[in-house]
């Protein structure tokens, strides 16, 4: 069996490892176009503040791991794929044939339509290369403007603050991380950031960026102007679907896959940020572009490529964020469903929030701010679709009792 995986991020690496476990004799190759060994974008913020060196971002020990598993690692750009001929063509002209192909090509940052984005002071923060550029320019005391307070924007916030820059954040939504947290939770993050000296502008967009001689000037939609030595854009990402653009493989927001992570071509699979797979909560097909989904996708795709897989029930959208020390997370349908009950505790004085969303007597969504203990059980409660029974009422009274609810509903606690 010849397996080719295009893309060396978490989805690709997990897929290769899962394939190896499933089929000890298969030929497995990962082809990635970035110059570094497979690394994790999730680790970039920690690289930015020198918590780790570059090798600390690597997904696996590049010297030994892939060789030990007999996984070929090819640093090459895949130029085209030929689904009918079951082969890929590399930038150096070589061609590789496959039995099963996995597209794990990830995504790329969107460039917002802002005049001046091409200026040398403007960067996205997506690759290790980007991170190196930011480290060089984001020196202590310099003014930095971050465009976008979404998930990516927020994970690099702390790194920038710790580097000692004067930071301003501009977000078009009415709150920070609008696609991850509701008004109250997003509001807590905003207040928190402002208390930390970050200049936060929500419901505000950037009209233009212009050269001011010593740096750039950022013109805001509310008429304000910010001067900056560095502008970082983090306004979202888009699936890297170019490779299949000319083929018959169906694309929507990303490459469409079924519950086996199979594209419209049965021998081509897709996983991770590029894949538009089934969402656990809605049953709809969506691009989630989050780390846990990438690894789940990689594993499910690989098992199916090896003929051992099953239909997947869908990946749960979830995020965890550390915004300058304030930890927040959300799961599933955190915004709730029509006719569902919800429970909420909001303590703005202490930056605490928990919100649970129910459909009937099971949990379908949850979000929290200021919590670090047992947050994963919110995933457990949602994905297991446990009927909470009486415990739903108790959670409506005290939504912090999620772990107790989970234990009471799944474990044998009785002893009388």
């Amino acid at each position, binding site marked *: 069996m010849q397996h080719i995986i295009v893309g060396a991020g978490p989805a690709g690496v997990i897929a290769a490892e899962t394939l190896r476990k499933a089929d000890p004799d298969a030929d497995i190759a990962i082809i990635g176009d970035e110059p570094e060994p497979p690394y994790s974008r999730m680790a970039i913020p920690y690289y930015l503040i020198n918590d780790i060196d570059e090798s600390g971002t690597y997904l696996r020990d590049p010297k030994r791991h892939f060789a030990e598993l007999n996984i070929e690692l090819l640093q090459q750009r895949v130029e085209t794929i030929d689904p009918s001929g079951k082969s890929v063509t590399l930038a150096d002209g070589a061609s590789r044939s496959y039995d099963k192909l996995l597209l794990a090509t990830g995504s790329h940052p969107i460039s917002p339509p802002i005049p001046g984005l091409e200026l040398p002071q403007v960067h996205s923060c997506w690759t290790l290369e980007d991170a190196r550029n930011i480290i060089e320019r984001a020196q202590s005391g310099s003014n930095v403007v971050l465009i976008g307070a979404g998930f990516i924007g927020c994970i690099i916030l702390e790194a920038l603050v710790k580097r000692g820059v004067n930071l301003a954040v501009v977000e078009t939504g009415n709150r920070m991380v609008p696609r991850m947290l509701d008004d109250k939770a997003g509001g807590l993050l905003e207040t928190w950031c402002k208390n930390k000296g970050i200049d936060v502008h929500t419901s505000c967009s950037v009209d233009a960026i212009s050269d001011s001689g010593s740096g750039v000037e950022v013109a805001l939609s509310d008429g304000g102007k910010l001067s900056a030595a560095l502008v970082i854009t983090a306004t979202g990402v888009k699936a890297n679907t170019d490779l299949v653009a000319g083929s018959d493989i169906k694309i929507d927001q990303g490459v469409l896959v079924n519950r086996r992570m199979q594209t419209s071509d049965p021998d081509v699979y897709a996983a991770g940020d590029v894949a538009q797979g089934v969402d656990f909560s809605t049953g709809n097909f969506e691009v989630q572009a989050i780390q846990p989904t990438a690894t789940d996708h990689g594993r499910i795709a690989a098992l199916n490529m090896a003929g051992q897989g099953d239909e997947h029930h869908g990946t749960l959208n979830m995020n965890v964020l550390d915004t300058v020390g304030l930890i927040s997370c959300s799961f599933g349908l955190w915004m709730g469903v029509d006719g569902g009950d919800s429970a909420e505790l909001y303590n703005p004085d202490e930056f605490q929030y928990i919100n649970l969303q129910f459909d009937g007597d099971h949990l379908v969504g949850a979000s929290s701010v200021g919590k670090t203990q047992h947050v994963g059980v919110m995933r457990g409660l949602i994905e297991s679709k446990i009927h909470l029974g009486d415990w739903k009422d108790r959670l409506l009274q005290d939504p912090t009792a999620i*772990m107790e609810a989970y234990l009471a509903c799944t474990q044998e606690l009785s002893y009388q």
Partner: protein
Amino acid sequence: MQKSLNIDPGKCTGCLQCEMACSYEHTGTFNPSRSYIKVFTFHHEGRFAPYTCTQCDEAWCMRACPVDAISVDITTGAKVVSDDKCVGCKVCTIACPFGTINYSQATGKVVKCDLCGGDPQCAAACPTDAITYVDADWTGYDRMQASAAKSLPSAEATA
């Protein structure tokens, strides 16, 4: 044969000796807030339930880790966090559906049960044998794992 923790909530009195032993082993302090095992109290039912990582086969935390900081201790089967590698990104804390790997603000890393390298101190400290460390055949711990797994379709779908 590998051993596993066997937890019998029916024997637990809620004394928290396990939490103290765990925190003492891992931090050198008597400090339940930093214990990796946690006793949950059910006031209304008059019950206590110690709970910690089941070292589940799916290893959700390990799979979700973006920097390979969680590995399997081959002698005990425990999924162990490497402090050197963990960057504190917390992805594992939302990936683990059992809520048993948690971020520690004290260390900036995630923490979880590591079975104390094969001599779990919670079991040693438990005065009522509510927590024991036994051959992993069909223990209450297995039942706990199984009932948890059964509740998670995602664990079944790809097993």
